[in-house]
């Protein structure tokens, strides 16, 4: 028992040091970003070589948790940068009054839409897509309409918009295509939905286990299976109505003692030193130039004919009502 206690003490003392050295930049991000296989380690090396400072990642569950952490910590937050929110969270994040302008020209940014926001810097993006198992789906749906009216024996797994970012993304996708008739569309889609999971991991786990023929994920998902697993078993379906877009963003914290360094980092975010690590580590499209062209697997991915996106303000205003509408239909 003493040995255990001793180990605990050691464990506690090894926990991250609290002192903030003069030249340390603390970035709150989501866990998978800083994982060994994520883009975090490479970006840290690249930025530190450039700035002569220390970049400290703090990994938090996911984008929503980063925003919550910021709200809980308020003005005393240790973060200099938050990285990993998406467009749907921007209005809420800005409303905390804790963030400040990035001060960059952002001329290198390349996104499917134009970007003018003064606070948030986009660092990667992907469109949501229905990913299917090619051994089970021989004629993939060519549109949301196809998906809704298709064979209900071929099941789809989606995520819950109340607890998951992709889940909310799909809800917004349906809303942007069907508008006032979204409830009706959901009612028709319902027999095709095998189950609604709390998060992306559960849904994708069920899908790769073979429980469902289709899952809601990203257009970039097949690239992972091609590059990391050398498998073309999974593909994304291109929908004629267009695909809903997710853009991930970063912003500087207003109260940061390292504001200058933080702005330097935000300018770095759209440069190759950062962007090179995005495609095959975060499995998203880079939002800026990369040193080398994207791997071939990315070139073969579905290119949405049209990009769908509500403004952050619209989402913040209507999200609750839209989720209630979804609940009403799906709970019947």
């Amino acid at each position, binding site marked *: *028992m003493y040995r*255990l*206690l001793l*180990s*605990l003490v050691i*464990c*506690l003392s*090894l*926990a*991250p040091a*609290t002192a903030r050295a003069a030249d340390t930049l603390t970035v709150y991000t989501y*866990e*998978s970003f*800083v*994982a*060994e*296989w994520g883009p975090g380690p490479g970006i840290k090396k690249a930025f530190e070589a450039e700035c002569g400072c220390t970049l400290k*990642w*703090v*990994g*938090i*569950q996911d984008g*929503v*948790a980063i*925003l*919550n952490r910021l*709200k*809980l*910590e308020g003005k*005393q937050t*240790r973060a200099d940068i938050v990285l990993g929110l998406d467009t749907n969270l921007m209005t809420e994040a800005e409303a905390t009054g804790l963030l400040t302008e990035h001060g960059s020209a952002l001329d290198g940014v390349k996104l499917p839409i134009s970007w003018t926001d003064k606070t948030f810097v986009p660092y990667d993006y992907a469109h949501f897509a229905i990913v299917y198992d090619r051994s089970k789906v021989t004629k993939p749906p060519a549109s949301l309409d196809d998906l809704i009216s298709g064979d209900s024996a071929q099941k789809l797994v989606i995520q*819950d918009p*109340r*607890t998951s970012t992709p889940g909310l993304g799909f809800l917004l996708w349906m809303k942007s295509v069907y508008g006032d008739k979204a409830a009706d569309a959901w009612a028709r889609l*319902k027999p095709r*939905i*095998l*189950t*609604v*999971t*709390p*998060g992306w*991991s*559960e849904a*994708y*786990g*069920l899908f790769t*286990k*073979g*429980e*469902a023929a289709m899952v809601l994920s990203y257009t970039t*998902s097949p690239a*992972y*299976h091609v590059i*990391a697993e050398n498998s073309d078993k999974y593909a994304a379906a291109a929908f004629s109505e267009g695909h809903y877009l997710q853009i991930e963003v970063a912003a500087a914290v207003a109260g940061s003692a390292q504001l200058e360094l933080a702005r330097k980092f935000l300018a770095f975010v759209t440069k190759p030193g950062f962007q090179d690590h995005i495609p095959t580590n975060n*499995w998203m499209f880079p939002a800026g130039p990369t040193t080398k062209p994207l791997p071939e697997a990315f070139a073969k991915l579905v290119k949405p004919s049209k990009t769908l996106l509500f403004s952050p303000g619209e989402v913040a205003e209507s999200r609750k009502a839209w989720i*209630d509408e979804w*609940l009403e239909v*799906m*709970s019947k």
Partner: protein
Amino acid sequence: MRARMAAAVWAGWAALTGIVTAAGAAFLALGLFAATQVAEQPVLFDAYLWRVVRFTLLQAGLSTILSILPAIVLARALTRRQRFPGRTALLRLLALPLALPALVVVLGIVQVWGQSGWANAVLKAAGFETGFNIYGLTGILIAHVFFNASLATRLLLSHLDRIPAENWRLASQLGMQPWSIFRLIEWPVLRAGLPGAASLVFLLCIASFTVVLTLGGGPKATTIEVAIYQALRFDFDPARAVLLALLQLSLCAGLIVLGGRFSGSMIATKSVYGWNIRPDVSSLWGRLADFAIIGVSALLLLLPLTAVVAGALSAPFAKLLGEPVFWRAVMTSVIIASVAAISCLVLTWCMLAGLRTLRSGQSRRVATVFTNLSMASASLILVLPPVVLGTGWFILLRPVTDVFAVAPGLVIMINTLMALPFAMRILQPAVTSASDSHERLCASLGMSGWHRFRLIDWPVLRAPLGLAFAFAMALSIGDLGAIALFGSEDFTTLPLLMFQRMGSYRMDEAAGLALLLLVFCLGLIYGAEGLARPRQVPGEAVQ
């Protein structure tokens, strides 16, 4: 001696106060924080919430009934058959589902019962084309029964195994038939254990989250726990989260009061077990029935666990075992789970020793108050969502210290609290009945404190203590609720590591980690129970 007694009582009250404070402080902090937020007045009781409440109670009620009934049948078969190859292994496997993160079990169950699972494959091969669909209430119930029937069996078995030899001698002399034996000897003992086991299962199902959402098929299957998680994690509405958590607490408190307190102390136990003089175990039919029950249960228990193993066959084990991060996670898991289990046992012991001393003392009223308070708090802690406890303590500690630095302490605290109801239910009946037999002896010998624990309590209680330790540890090892809040790249446990891999497409690595977690938990349960195994084997107990 009077001073010693007072010390035990004092420790009991201190433990109880500590538990209530730990939970209450989190609530208070969250409530106060909510008050500082400008928010629109939340509509709490709308039609949606009533639907959620109804569904929560329905699924928890059904899950409890469906878990307890087979548990009674299985526990009875196991107590009748004390010796067969693999009995110990089966008993330890029964503690395993609890130790696995819900997601691992869900995927295991899906592999067996899902659309493209083994059961449907067998049905298809037999010519039934349609197969069956588990998503919906069926899936929730299958998963909950898998988790909880095993747990309830262990709890009930610990009651049945304490039936004293005198009863069996009497039953033999009277030539009692199996039905009379069940009605007159086994049922009273079971009845004493049922409220404890059933309320535990019920509360666990109330707080179910991953199982309900993943297997529930859609938002029709939503529990209050989901609504709390949504309010705090996704909508960041602390006021609503606090109100919902209070609603969940008061619902459960009401049901606990209705259900009565758990097991009394009507069993006058001697340390001599008399299983092999049971008059009803030698018939061929009885034997066949018992082994059929044990066989089928073992199969149902093993199938999803086998699925976890089978799913991991193609996992890159060499790579996983070669990663330093894996070994760090193993170390962290062992330390966290051991410390949580030890502190849980210490707290439980303090409360039970205080209770024991109070009961033998003068004031029955104080004893009753203490009993009720400690039992209630050891139950309700189960339906306190980790996300509420965690966020509350985050708010409390943030101004004082770096929360990341004390993260291991917070995870240990939450895990300790979550394991209390298990330890309490395992130890309370055992301690009470041991106290009934030894209290006077100890008093006349003036024996108390450490001496008493070492010489009197430990020999009688080592088995329940081992079981409680194993359960507490299993629960802490499989925990994803607390660690998900406070984990970081420097502080990762095995389940978190697994969940992170799953979240980054690495399903094969996650499957491998799930198997390693399973093996690792099994090792710990073997270790914990093995150490505390009574030296006397039941066969030698009868003179």
